């Protein structure tokens, strides 16, 4: 017995020339719904990847007394939602990639519901659509998300590629289009969504800019019109049905023809869909008429099924699901591994291994024979692989188990066989069987599951509020916590906070208890949800649990809890965030309140001051005024004074600074500022009188300039008026006179009174200006301590030696010694060395 046949039929059709597609039809569910009229007169949409099904009964009824009913079911026909339709006439239903229901109305409005019937939002497909009404519409999926394409009453196409980021595109006109086109489809090609339109026998591709006529290669000439078309799940292949009953199959870029088959039926079909496995060598499409389903492939023969009931086709990645009023089936090409194993009289290694295992269970020695046969061809690992793979494609747990047991049996005879494939298949199948369960109703195939990823599956379970199952799967698959369990819990909490019947305290407690141990929970998101459902108090409570203060801020601002937002921002240490709040408050509050709030938050205040320093000087003044910070006000005036070109304005600002400094009891600053004002006035007066550029110079530079131009009296006046220390003035005058090389004046100055800086500077400055003669004049006046230095400066070795020996100072003697040259100062050195010896002795 071949177990796969237990619940599914298998049709094999062969012709002389080709091996034709081998198809299998698996019953997924007996539908749990109870539909009176089946699917007749219903608008039906089923989401791919085993998604939910929506039905709109009696959508054509326009009388308000009998409203149509919108119902949502799981794939197994369990009701998820049901409500009377109160909006406009619906032209089309469809599902988004995130399991939201789209209802496209006649006027181009699209209403979005979640899969439990909750209204989410609506959007419009534009004025043009609402004016000329929707004629036909198609909902499509692309890498950019879910899109909507509309054919309007004006026979123009409008397209939105991603409903989450709506950018409407109106496509160019189709030439010669008089009425509705015979058929059309949306393709995604070259990262662009395009529309393929058939008008009679003419085919056009519409993109953003142009309408291009195209011809499918090798389309049989009998056809006068293309009546139906469909694009494969991957947008790679296209099938066209002509009025002569021929199905043309080829690539969707219309470059290659794969096959053409005559269905021998000329009536227009109800639906057509691709039914091709990824990596399959052969094309195959399904065409459905009332009561009849035909599979067309590469060969001339077709496979026919009879349908008892009105059905719809749901194209999937690896097959087609057929949903009728009572049943839900999957029609697909038999996967390679299954075919190899279950083909009658198959000698494939997998088949032999399965047989061997069966015999082994019967305790028959034939097991060894079969095993030996495989091993002799060294195909045992291949056999194990086949069995594991086939198990993945089987829907019946018993069959899966049989195959896996066989694989496990085969593995025993292999050393070094990598276990990963077997282990992960077992895991995957457990998950798949769990979600395929009637009560969950997500009939995913293994291929679809791999394509969709665990992440998305978890999302889907969350959308269905199947939190415990989702968590169990996360734990079972050991998904990292914050991608798995934590994420599910967050969704749960977001749902929980919307339950109006429970009190804030109860919910907050429940949430915190359940989420306490979960890592990486973002309470701010949950709080946002609570706030959105009008529960501000709950939101604040939940925010308390948020460890990242930064995340609390935006929501607190939204909820107008600005003082709290400000302190949280400060707590986070992120100054950029503090600025965010401060700038927000600045716009929200009146100035007084704003300043008051800042006053209580020094960190924010000093940041705001920083901002003002660069952007709003006036505000800064107000801030200082408010705080009676006279010192800073004074500084502000000082800074401002430098921006003034006019001297009067500058002095006026400095006067303001003086006043502030006095208020701040900063006598020193006030006095020096007054001095500066005095100096500025003096400089201007002298500038006017003598034409010397002086304003803005320091006192020191002013005096230097005056001395250099010979205005000694004025310099003296400044020296007295500003009480310049004698020392500094002497230095200054000494240097200025030397600079001018006014040696006569310098000598006079040196004799005017006893120098407060001594006379060594006189010697050194003269030497610096290369006047040894003048320098020597001052050597005698130098104090004894500096004598040696002075003599050395003028190059008088004898004198230096004399002075050093007289002072009996060892280090000075050494200094002189180091300057002596061995050739010229021989005698001197001897003397010095002797003196040094005695100095050391002492």
């Amino acid at each position: 017995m071949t177990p796969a046949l237990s619940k599914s039929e298998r049709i094999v059709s062969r012709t002389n020339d080709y091996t034709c597609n081998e198809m299998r039809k698996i019953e997924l569910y007996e539908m749990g719904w109870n539909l009176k009229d089946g699917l007749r007169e219903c608008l039906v949409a089923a989401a791919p990847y085993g998604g939910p099904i929506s039905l709109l009964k009696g959508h054509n009824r326009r009388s308000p007394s009998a409203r149509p009913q919108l119902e949502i079911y799981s794939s197994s026909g369990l009701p998820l939602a049901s409500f009377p339709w109160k909006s406009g006439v619906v032209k089309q239903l469809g599902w988004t990639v995130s399991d939201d229901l789209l209802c496209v109305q006649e006027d181009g409005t699209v209403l979005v519901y979640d899969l439990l019937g909750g209204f989410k939002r609506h959007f419009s497909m534009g004025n043009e659509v609402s004016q000329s009404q929707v004629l036909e519409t198609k909902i499509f999926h692309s890498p950019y998300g879910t899109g909507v394409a509309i054919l309007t009453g004006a026979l123009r196409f409008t397209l939105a590629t991603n409903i989450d980021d709506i950018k409407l595109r109106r496509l160019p006109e189709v030439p010669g289009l008089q009425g509705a086109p015979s058929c059309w489809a949306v393709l995604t090609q070259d990262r662009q969504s395009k529309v393929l339109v058939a008008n009679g026998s003419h085919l056009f591709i519409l993109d953003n800019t142009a309408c291009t006529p195209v011809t499918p290669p090798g389309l049989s000439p009998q056809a006068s019109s293309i009546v139906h078309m469909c694009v494969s799940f991957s947008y790679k292949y296209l099938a066209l049905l002509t009025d002569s009953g021929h199905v043309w199959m080829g690539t969707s870029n219309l470059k290659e023809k794969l096959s053409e088959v005559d269905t021998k039926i000329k009536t227009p079909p109800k639906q057509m869909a691709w039914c091709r496995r990824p990596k399959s060598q052969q094309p195959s499409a399904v065409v459905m008429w009332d009561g009849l389903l035909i599979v067309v492939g590469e060969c001339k023969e077709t496979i026919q099924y009879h349908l008892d009931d009105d059905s719809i086709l749901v194209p999937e990645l690896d097959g087609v699901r057929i949903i009728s009023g009572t049943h839900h089936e999957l029609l697909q090409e038999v996967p390679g591994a299954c075919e190899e194993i279950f083909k009658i009289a198959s000698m494939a290694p997998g088949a032999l291994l399965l047989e061997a295992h069966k015999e082994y269970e019967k305790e028959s020695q034939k097991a060894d024979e079969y095993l030996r046969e495989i091993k002799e061809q060294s195909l045992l690992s291949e056999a194990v692989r086949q069995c594991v793979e086939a198990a993945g494609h089987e829907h019946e747990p018993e069959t899966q188990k049989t195959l896996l047991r066989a694989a496990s049996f085969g593995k025993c005879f292999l050393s070094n066989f990598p276990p990963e494939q077997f282990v992960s298949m077992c895991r995957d199948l457990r998950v798949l069987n769990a979600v395929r369960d009637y009560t969950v109703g997500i009939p995913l195939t293994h291929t679809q599951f791999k394509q969709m990823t665990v992440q998305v599956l978890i999302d889907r379970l969350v959308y269905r509020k199947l939190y415990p199952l989702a968590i169990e799967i996360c734990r079972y698959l050991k998904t990292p916590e914050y991608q798995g369990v934590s994420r599910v819990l967050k969704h749960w909490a977001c749902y929980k906070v919307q339950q109006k019947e429970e009190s804030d305290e109860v919910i907050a407690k429940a949430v915190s208890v359940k989420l306490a141990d979960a890592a990486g929970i973002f309470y701010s998101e949950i709080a946002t949800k609570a706030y959105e459902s009008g529960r501000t108090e709950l939101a604040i409570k939940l925010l308390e649990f948020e460890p990242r203060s930064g995340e609390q801020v935006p929501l607190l601002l939204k909820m107008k809890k600005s003082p709290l937002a400000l302190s949280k921002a400060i707590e986070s240490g992120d100054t950029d965030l503090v600025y965010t709040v401060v700038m927000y408050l600045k716009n929200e509050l009146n100035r007084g309140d704003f300043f008051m709030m800042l006053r209580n938050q020094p960190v924010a205040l000093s940041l705001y001051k920083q901002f003002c320093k660069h952007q709003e000087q006036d505000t800064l003044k107000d801030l200082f005024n408010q705080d009676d910070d006279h010192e800073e006000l004074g500084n502000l005036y000082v800074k401002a004074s430098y921006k003034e070109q006019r001297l009067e304005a500058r002095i006026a600002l400095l006067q303001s600074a003086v006043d502030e400094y006095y208020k701040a009891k900063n006598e020193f600053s006030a006095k020096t500022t007054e001095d500066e004002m005095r100096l500025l006035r003096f400089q201007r007066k002298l500038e006017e009188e003598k034409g010397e550029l002086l304003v803005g110079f320091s006192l020191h530079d002013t005096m230097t300039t005056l001395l250099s131009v010979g205005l000694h009296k004025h310099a003296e006046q400044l020296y007295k008026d500003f009480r310049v220390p004698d020392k500094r003035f002497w230095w200054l005058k000494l240097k200025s006179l030397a600079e001018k090389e006014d040696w006569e004046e310098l000598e006079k100055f040196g004799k005017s009174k006893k120098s407060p800086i001594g006379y060594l500077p006189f010697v050194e400055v003269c030497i610096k200006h290369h006047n040894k003669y003048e320098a020597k004049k001052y050597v005698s006046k130098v104090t004894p301590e500096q004598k040696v230095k002075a003599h050395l400066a003028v190059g008088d070795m004898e004198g230096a030696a004399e002075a050093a020996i007289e002072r009996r100072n060892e280090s000075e003697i050494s200094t002189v010694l180091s300057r002596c040259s061995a050739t010229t100062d021989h005698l001197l050195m001897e003397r010095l060395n002797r003196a040094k010896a005695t100095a050391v002795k002492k």
Partner: protein
Amino acid sequence: MHAISYSHVMQGFPNFFCQPNLREDKLQPRDFHILFVPRRSLLCEQRLKEKGVLNSFTNIDEYILDLIPYDGDLLSMESESSFRECYLENDQTSLYHAAKGLMTLQALYGTIPQIFGKGECARHVANMMLRMKREFAGSQTQILPVFDTLLLLDRNVDLLTPLATQLTYEGLIDEIFGITNGYVKLPPEKFAQKKQGEGGKELPTEPKKLQLNSAEELYAEIRDKNFNAVGAALSKKAKIISAAFEERHNAKTVGEIKQFVSQLPHMQAARSSLANHTSIAELIKDITTSEDFFDSLTVEQEFMTGVDTDKVSTYIEDCIAQKDPLIKILRLVCMQSVCNNGLKQKVLDYYKKEILQTYGYKHILTLKNLERVGLLKPQSTMRNNYPTIRKTLKLWMEDANEQNPNDISYVYSGYAPLSVRLTQVLARPGWRSIEEVLKMLPGPHFEERQQVPTGLHKKRQPGENRTILVFFLGGVTYAEIAALRFLSNMEDSGTEYIIAATKLINGTSWIKSLMDSPEENLP
């Protein structure tokens, strides 16, 4: 595409994009992108929004640049005005980035189990780190900790060290020529290529630019030496190199010659490296042997040893009278104030008046800034506790050995940097022994422990070193780095130091960052 980095939000950057030629470039439609370095800033974006250009950018992104590695053991944020912002303007943005940088470091090298700190900023950074750790709970990577301890030090705990003239080779290069981002620009004359035939035609006018880091073998060897020991090291190296070149005469067999040739590139690199550093050392020597340098250093050392710190210094007076560079004066006056725990009001006012009269009234704001950060201050009634600190921490070592140092004080020829002493004491015998002194220094000192997942506890092999990351908030000098490296290399230290800082500073660049010149803001 242009990547645009900005140093400060408020500066002209947003205006740059508003120029008509950028907005109305009709001939060549271009995409504009912003990449914020080191971090995205709301204020900047808002500015762009106000100017109405924010929407013309295709992409706005940030390249988060916290800690930049400058050497095998050195990280810097190169945040120029960090000290000024933290201590003068109360803007702790750079501390937030420091904390972020430390989190990144921990994500890469494991949680640091122990955090010590001294100072207000250190406390703030540690608090932020601990909070961030809670925020990231659950998403941590399981890495064996590389660092055993983190030490956070506020610059204002040790205001003295950066004021002193650094006396290590690298420190002097920085003091005299200034090292920016690992490069130094030197006067070209000494580096003229002496090629035969061209015979000194033209001297290069472009300054010579050299990269300085430990990848250069010779530099690694001498950078942290006291300058007085550099000459000997250079001549020793010269002998080794010429001996290596002489080897060629001994190469007899083909194999030997081949081996010699294979070493040639390395030897030539070593020779040119030697030539460069000999030139630099000569340039430095011209300055260090000058009377000016000597006098100034003498006064510095007098202050540090507490000689005549409470009256007006004749030397400073003379320097002002001769209008020496203002920053030199400010460094010395600040140093005197710090070493005396504040100056007598009369002395302080005298200095201030002298400075304002000589260098101009405009510097009044700078002086106020220096007072606000504590570099200048009037003496309070409190006792001057600097001598106690100096004695307890042994900040002055009379017999500093410059050639073969046995103590960190060699980096300043006698003065042991306070910051590094604190670090040294922490490693052994621990801060408990200097509780009294810690209380005299500003800001709290603290210890925090971070939980390390079980199984990641480091089991130290006998003889294996502990690793301490020392983070200087407000900047670190090259001499301090040298001192820490000296500690790492000490035979029995048992501790290895990695250094991080908000900025690599010296006294000049540091004081400069605190200056305010109102004239510069003229429109």
